[in-house]
């Protein structure tokens, strides 16, 4: 019997007052905390009699350690970091400056190199980094300022007071598989906050609650997502230079799927490589982990990795709906930053610098609000104005229709992209619509039995154990660990749909799109189709793909007990 996690009812919870609660210790959350601290320092120096205190400013981070759940390629555009910490390059853990770029279009065995790197993919001046290490460093700076970062604590529920967000409830700890308190049960705290800043990253769970509660998305395009799936490799010396950046398009994807790969040379012969697969592909049998393994078989990649060792694996979704998918980012007692809002440049495939900038702008708004002690919608909407008059808007406006241009396939997308390039992002009209990715999924009945063109993207990988790996082996290298005795945090609202409808219509795509083997259809003679949905929740890498991609939209991802999740050391 599957029992799903929900906050225990009728429990007395400790109350803790707070000025600011930042949910999420990623680049956006940390930049916000750091900037706020800087502004407070400046203020306190000038106003010794009216000091602002950091005592009640908190960052909630669900991972056991700062940075542990941060995963990206990654390439950092230093623009916002230079504003936040001028001269940061001297002390930040940067792998190397980008020295060389190439873009390839791949066929099964061949490759065509773009003679000129398309401008959006030009990375000179950017840095290859490990986001995990970068955030660890940033987090240490935040802690030095005296702001408390609570690691191992998740924001599990928003506390609402009418139309005001009044705070955050943290996760209940010590709850067993049946959702009953264990002997070491600790109830989640109710943090009564003046403002809750949601910096949860992609598809934030509290962000989703907020959007649903206040209908924040009724004027926006539906957010669309990709799944980034990554492996970190140690390769023999000389294979790739530190700072060398490669992008690929084409194989193994067909024109029906959106996506491409990256390969970044880091330092000490460590290579970051991965694939981004748009979660709007038509065949529900597609398995992104398999796409990555197929990609590695291409001679370009196989040669690079030959004799090397895979040291880490991970996956995360990314929002690339662009400007038109971003909901209002501030309201009565709340703000939304970074990937949670959707500040990602899908054309350049970069969002870290935007997340950081959004955090800084939010801090400026919060600082003013703290001085006036006014956290109403009117006061906090200052953040919305700041974003719209900043370079975040400039940058995202130019690419506001980029991903939507691909709604009807690769070639249409390229044409649209070209048009948009010359029209400041407008293309054929100011706002291209989009549809949510899961609505692109076709039913099995409408697809060739063997997958047709996409045949090699379908089916689990066995792997040779050297270049390619089966999902479980890959998953082991994500360092994922959770308290085992807890309720399932992948809340399926109606398992009958899984067992009776989805299995027939779509063939249970959760087994395929989950990069962590959380979902399995196991034999069950009592079910009409002989199988029932079974979960391995402790495998979860917190990528949120299931919440995004399930065709019936009946899965809600909620944070498991804090401290659990992947360990993206070095990612």
């Amino acid at each position, binding site marked *: 019997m599957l029992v799903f996690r929900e906050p225990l009812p009728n429990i007395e919870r400790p109350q803790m007052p707070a000025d600011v609660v930042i949910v999420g210790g990623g680049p956006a959350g940390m930049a916000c905390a750091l900037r706020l601290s800087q502004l407070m320092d400046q203020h306190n120096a000038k106003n010794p009699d009216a000091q602002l205190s950091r005592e009640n400013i908190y960052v909630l981070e669900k991972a056991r350690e700062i940075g542990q759940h941060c995963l990206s390629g990654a390439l950092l555009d230093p623009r916002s970091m230079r504003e936040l910490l001028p001269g940061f390059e001297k002390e930040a853990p940067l792998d190397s400056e980008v020295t060389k770029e190439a873009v390839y279009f791949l066929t099964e065995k061949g490759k065509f190199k773009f003679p000129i790197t398309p401008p959006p993919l030009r990375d000179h001046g950017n840095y290859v980094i490990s986001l995990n290490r970068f955030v660890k460093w940033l987090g240490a700076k935040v802690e030095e300022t005296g702001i*408390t970062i609570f690691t191992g604590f998740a924001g599990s529920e928003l506390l609402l007071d009418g139309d005001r967000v009044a705070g955050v409830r943290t996760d209940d700890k010590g709850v067993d598989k049946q959702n009953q308190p264990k002997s070491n049960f600790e109830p989640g*705290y109710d943090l009564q906050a003046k403002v809750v800043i949601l910096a949860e990253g992609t598809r934030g769970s509290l962000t989703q609650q907020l959007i649903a509660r206040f209908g924040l998305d009724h004027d926006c395009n539906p957010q669309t997502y990709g799944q980034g799936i990554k492996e970190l490799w140690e390769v023999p010396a000389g294979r790739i230079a530190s700072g060398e950046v490669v992008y690929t398009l084409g194989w193994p994807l067909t024109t029906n799927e959106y996506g491409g790969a990256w390969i970044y040379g880091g330092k000490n012969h460590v290579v970051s490589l991965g694939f981004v697969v748009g979660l709007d592909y038509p065949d529900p049998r597609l398995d992104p982990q398999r796409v990555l393994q197929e990609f590695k078989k291409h001679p370009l990649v196989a040669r690079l990795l030959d004799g090397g060792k895979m040291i880490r694996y991970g996956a995360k979704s990314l929002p690339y709906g662009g400007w038109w998918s971003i909901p209002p980012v501030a309201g009565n007692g709340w703000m939304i930053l970074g990937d949670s809002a959707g500040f990602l440049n899908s054309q350049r495939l970069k969002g870290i610098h935007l997340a950081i900038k959004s955090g800084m702008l939010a801090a400026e708004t919060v600082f003013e609000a703290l001085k006036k002690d006014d956290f109403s919608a009117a006061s906090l909407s200052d953040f919305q104005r700041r974003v719209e008059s900043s370079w975040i808007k400039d940058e995202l406006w130019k690419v506001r229709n980029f991903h939507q241009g691909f709604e009807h396939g690769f070639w249409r997308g390229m044409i649209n992209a070209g048009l948009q390039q010359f029209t400041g992002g407008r293309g054929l009209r100011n706002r291209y619509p989009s549809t949510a990715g899961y609505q692109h999924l076709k039913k099995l009945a409408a697809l060739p039995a063997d997958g047709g063109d996409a045949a090699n993207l379908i089916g689990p990988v066995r792997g040779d154990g050297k270049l390619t790996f089966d999902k479980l082996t890959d998953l082991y290298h994500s360092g994922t660990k959770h308290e085992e005795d807890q309720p399932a945090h992948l809340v399926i609202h109606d398992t009958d749909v899984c067992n009776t409808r989805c299995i027939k219509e779509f063939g249970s795509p959760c087994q395929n799109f989950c990069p962590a083997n959380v979902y399995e259809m196991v034999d069950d003679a009592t079910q009409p189709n002989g199988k029932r949905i079974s979960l391995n929740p402790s495998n979860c890498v917190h990528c949120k793909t299931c919440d995004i991609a399930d065709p019936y939209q009946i899965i809600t991802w909620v944070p498991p007990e804090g401290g659990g999740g992947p360990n993206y050391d070095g990612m």
Partner: protein
Amino acid sequence: MKILVCMKQVPQKDAPLKLNESSTWIREDVSYEVNEPDAFALEEALRQKEKHSGEVVVITAGPARAQQVLREALAKGADRAIHLEDNAFVGLDASNTARAFAAAIQDEKFDLIFTGLQSDDYGYAQTGVVLAELLGWPHATIIMQIEKTDGGIRVKRELEAGYFQFVDMPLPALLTIQSGINKLRYATLIGIKQAKNKPLRKVTLAEVQSAMGANMQKIERLYIPQKTKNTEFLEGPSAEVAKKLVEKLRNEVRVL
């Protein structure tokens, strides 16, 4: 009851380990966590404090990163922490570690000292017992339960093969605590906040050096155990295979 808990920071249980250049230790670029048996020792100390009031002090010897273990302990309810901070503490043998601890606590008057029964990295199970001898205290190992008595304490000791034994001991005493004897408590938000203001005394290597000597043992070489695994396939009808297996169990594996 004034209780000292000796704690150690060790590489995370499933961290991928790499050998250093000289193959005498591991590369330190791994994730660390508290030695699991020590977490149970701390939990037991906190429970004793809850029952009999008193103070729980935690101590560790290690580099700056080891402070994390102390912070977590303070967040869970320990009152004070002592950090013997120096990279050199990592390479000490059990005897020297115990000597360093003894020197650091010479001005304190503890009733009880707990350690975990062994560390997940070295697995020697010695530091606690050595410390007891240096202090001249009675000790008992692999303890499951502790009760206060008029004359001191009564402890339940775990023995092999499902046997147990109660032992009466005077105080002060040192106990090495068995893992898994109770459920570990979670640190709370308030606990974490309060931990920031709890006393954390740093002790340098120089301050305890005179109590120590040269290491009495040396790791000459650390290596990945070579599995000279020649998998022997046993074939034949089931009854025969069963006999072959038993023959292996008796003569090669020596369990029969």
